[in-house]
């Protein structure tokens, strides 16, 4: 059972609009209780989670128009497979933040560890700080905006979606990338196999402007460079053997 503080209604009963946030203290309740409550049918409203203490799998599998604020650091897979709602983490996030996100938003005010938004199919992930290695690995449609820098092997095999980096990118950016688009403001340590710099067209400046605005950033689209697939590895070919 979720222990409730600050509201009389049980956590799994939809809070009427305008009601105060449902407060879940993870020093009192377990992550299991929290997730179960968030999975109850027709769940909605504002939720605040305290004492997250780097616990794993917080607020995973949300599939409802809820708004969850986590006051503190989270461990692995926070907001994993997220759908529809909005999750804000006021702290740092561990490995696999918002992995395989489908829709909705996940916003981290601090840094995120490796594999942030890995394999995400949709939605928006905003990281105000830096992200570690493999940010956006195998991304399949998610949009990612990182305020700081990202680590090596980011956007590895990125299939679709957009990755925006306001700082620098580490080695092997976009290795074996498919159709995802990458925008980096700072320097790129090195590009991975088949990833190349591409010209910025009007449509790119426009989509980048929208992504920056959605993430609450003040950078200008014209300050960024675009990277994407040269599409040379799309077919097996004898001349590419060194890249396999």
């Amino acid at each position: 059972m979720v222990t409730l503080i600050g509201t009389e209604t049980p956590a799994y009963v939809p809070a009427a609009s305008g009601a105060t946030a449902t407060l879940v203290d993870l020093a009192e309740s377990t992550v299991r209780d929290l997730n179960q409550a968030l999975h109850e049918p027709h769940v909605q409203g504002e939720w605040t989670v305290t004492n997250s203490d780097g616990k794993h799998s917080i607020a995973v599998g949300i599939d409802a128009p809820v708004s969850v604020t986590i006051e503190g650091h989270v461990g692995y897979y926070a907001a994993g497979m997220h759908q529809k709602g909005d999750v804000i983490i006021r702290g740092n996030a561990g490995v696999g933040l918002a992995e395989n996100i489908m829709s909705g938003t996940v916003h981290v005010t601090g840094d995120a560890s490796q594999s942030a938004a890995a394999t995400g199919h949709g939605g928006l992930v905003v990281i105000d700080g830096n992200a570690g290695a493999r940010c956006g690995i195998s991304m399949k449609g998610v949009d990612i905006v990182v305020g700081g820098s990202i680590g090596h092997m980011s956007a590895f095999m990125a299939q679709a979606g957009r990755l925006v980096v306001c700082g620098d990118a580490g080695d092997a950016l976009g290795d074996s990338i498919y159709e995802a688009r990458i925008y980096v403001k700072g320097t790129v340590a090195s590009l991975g196999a088949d990833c190349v710099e591409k010209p910025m067209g009007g449509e790119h400046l426009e989509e980048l402007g929208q992504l920056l605005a959605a993430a609450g950033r003040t950078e200008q689209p014209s300050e960024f460079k675009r990277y994407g697939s040269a599409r040379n590895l799309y077919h097996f070919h004898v001349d590419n053997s060194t890249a396999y």
Partner: protein
Amino acid sequence: MTVTSLPHDAALSARHPGELGLRESATFDRATIADIQRAAATGVYDIRGWGAKRSVPHFDDLLFLGASMSRYPLEGYRERCDTDIVLGDRHASKPLHLQTPVTIAGMSFGALSANAKEALGRGASEVGTSTTTGDGGMTPEERGQSKHLVYQYLPSRYGMNPDDLRKADAIEIVLGQGAKPGGGGMLLGQKITERVAGMRTLPVGIDQRSASRHPDWTGPDDLEIKIGELREITDWKKPIYVKVGASRPYYDTALAVKSGADVIVVDGMQGGTAATQQVFIENVGIPTLAAIPQAVQALQELGVHRKVQLIVSGGIRTGADVAKAMALGADAVAIGTAALIALGDNDPRYAAEYAALGSAAGYYDDFQDGRDPAGISTQDPELSSRLDPVAGGRRIANYLRVLTMEAQTIARACGKSHLRNLEPEDLVALTIEAAAMARVPLAGTSWIPGAR
């Protein structure tokens, strides 16, 4: 593979080379020569389907002892020999209860046609067993036709989504496959049609190579957290399997148990694949026979044999194979290649078409190529329409029933009232190699090579 050498002179080849006193090299046999010629002609390694074709110690090298003075057989038909199994009751609130221990292995839509997937689902459901998705997501057809559907969670995560996760009856985290432990998926352009590409979020017609490592975890400590996440997302309802290619099954099994898996799937090196480099298929991994005792030993040492169930795959063809795998300690088996054969793969009735593709019935392994005359490993609408999913489902159900009845026949002969009661003591080995690998005595002796 497809032969690339030039057609040779008809008159010279009329007489069998052996009659001319010609000697074929054991080292450079004709298949090896063709491989070298193919490599020289194309500059790209050979990619093919099927599993290892080399001969390795296998279930054929084991025999059952049957009943004798000291063991009573059960009367066929009159005395019961049950076959049902429960999978995943360690942590899942909704374990699977199957009527036969023969399950259908994971094979992707993409590798297989939609009709083939539907036929597998229909056949499995008819006999009360499970079928499995693959490296390409879950199709509505297979979900609709499968009573028990296992949803694979692979490194590529193609089509992975929480809605399908919640629709699944079990989740199988795939670390590896027996045909290619350590290798990622492959699907060549001919098979990346609009529908397949859409499900995988890939451009139509590309040669897909997918990741061999999971994108967001590495090693057993991470896997434990990953399993925890999947359980949280599905509210601890679904059994979670971990599938490994047989390479270090003792350690992999122990680590999977420690990571919290409900079920371990061990796939031997003979296991089939849709598309992998031939060099990988033939040279990486260990035989199914060698893998089972190692996995069972790990489960026994941890005190979880039968609590964490073991599914074995890789070269299961007959009810005898099913019974032997179970006698060595497996709880269930999975079939891939044999199910495709039951659907019509390599049927001599397509002999002329196989010949036109440079292959022959009994040899066809170009699952990567998408031109399967039997309509199974293809996305071509004309070819796949040759496979009627209802008739195919009936063939699968027939075959699964035969496997089950054959296994029961052997179990009754050994005096066992449930397939699960078969034990290593019921077995002997025909060769020293098989005795050492399966850890049962060489027939007529009490010798288990390597036993302490």
